[in-house]
């Protein structure tokens, strides 16, 4: 006979229940940690930084061991602690665009969480605050496209007229880019359309004596479209041991560059 007849569960079973409850909590925490990791990756954080941040966060939230595997399109984390056993979650990552300001904020956030052992609610609030930080408006982006285009037209040896033409075309491309983005179209399609239009406008500009050299006008716009940073980063990834991420990004940037070259070739053929 048991000492306490009201105990439905043996101590062993109670222990088991506690573990299940703890595991549920660990799952909740892990979910938020993955939110942070996913957002970092989408804002342009390096794979190694994301892995490291996730590992630190898991440890800060009480894991005894955390195994993190991240590539540009996915995160897999398993945390272990004697209290709750092993808990695993995966996250599929789609779409990323550099937002270095938010990346910086996320980095700070994860450091503070680790140092101050935040609660779940606090973490959620801070994450929501970062999500709602204002980005640069459309006007600034238009100016940016013009600035980059004309800068690189001059940089590669174009005339002032070329730079002006390139800047104007850059603004037009930004409008096209926004229109395409709203339809949620394929990234390659967007690049193809932008480069084709860029090539056409550059050709027309020279035809109507609004520019001197098609190549010089186009190079300014090409610098906006070409995945040069992605190519360099892909090599950096591979050299630092993240071979799969590096390869994925490498192939992606080669394909994008091909698409862009095809777009300009198409425009040249049409003119």
């Amino acid at each position, binding site marked *: 006979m048991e000492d306490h007849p009201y105990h439905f569960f043996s101590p062993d079973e109670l222990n088991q229940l506690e573990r299940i409850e703890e595991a549920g909590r660990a799952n909740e925490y892990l979910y938020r940690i993955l939110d942070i990791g996913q957002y970092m990756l989408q804002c*342009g*954080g*390096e794979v*190694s*930084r994301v892995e*490291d*941040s996730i*590992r*630190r966060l898991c*440890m800060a939230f009480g894991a*005894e*061991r*955390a*195994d993190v595997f991240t590539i540009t399109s996915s995160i897999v984390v398993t945390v272990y602690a004697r209290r709750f056993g092993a808990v695993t979650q995966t996250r599929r990552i789609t779409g990323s665009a*550099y*937002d*270095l*300001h*938010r*990346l*910086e904020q996320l*980095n*700070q956030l994860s450091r503070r969480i680790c140092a101050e052992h935040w609660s779940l609610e606090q973490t959620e609030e801070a994450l929501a605050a970062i999500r709602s930080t204002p*980005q*640069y408006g459309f006007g*600034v*982006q238009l*100016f*940016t*496209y013009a*600035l*980059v285009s004309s*800068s*690189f037209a*001059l*940089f*590669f*040896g174009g005339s002032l007229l070329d730079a002006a033409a390139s800047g104007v075309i850059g603004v037009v491309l930004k409008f096209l880019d926004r229109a395409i983005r709203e339809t949620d179209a394929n990234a390659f399609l967007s690049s193809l359309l932008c480069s084709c239009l860029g090539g056409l406008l550059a050709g027309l500009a020279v035809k109507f004596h609004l520019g001197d050299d098609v190549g010089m006008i186009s*190079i300014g716009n*090409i*610098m906006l479209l*070409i*995945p*040069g*940073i992605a*190519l*360099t*980063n892909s*090599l*950096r990834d591979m*050299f*630092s041991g993240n071979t799969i991420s590096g390869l994925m990004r490498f192939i992606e*940037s080669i394909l994008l*560059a*091909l698409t*862009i*070259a*095809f777009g*300009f*070739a198409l425009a040249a053929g049409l003119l």
Partner: protein
Amino acid sequence: MDMLIQLITAFTGSLGFALLFHVRKEKLLLASLGGLLAWGVYLLMGLVSDQDVVRYFAASVALTVYAECLARAVKCPATLFLVTASIPLIPGGSLYRTMEYFMQNDLGAFSAQALNTVLLAVAIAVGMLFPTAIFQLVRRARVKKPPETPGQERSSPT
């Protein structure tokens, strides 16, 4: 004169990309100055070597040291400066020309240009590795090591 134009446009080009990547006011100037520095080092190295790979490598090392130092000074990820300041160096034009030759079915020019593009990208990537590794070593030596979990390796963040 050409060099002056290049330096100015390297600055404005980096500024443009920094804006595009949502870098905030106080860091915009620092990030764009990094682009100017990178291209300045590239031009200066022209006195020493006529090999583009060497010049890109040196510029990349200089810019990474700049980025890592600033990251510690203003407390933000080095990536922020690294990405924006490497804009004048990234072989975007070269990559485009590679694909252009491919489209024109000029395989000789294509392979030469492709090799050049990859070499430059490697020079930049490897140039970024060295200073980052050294900064990590210094950091690891200074910060007390956290207790290790058996069977797990740790890497310190950049």
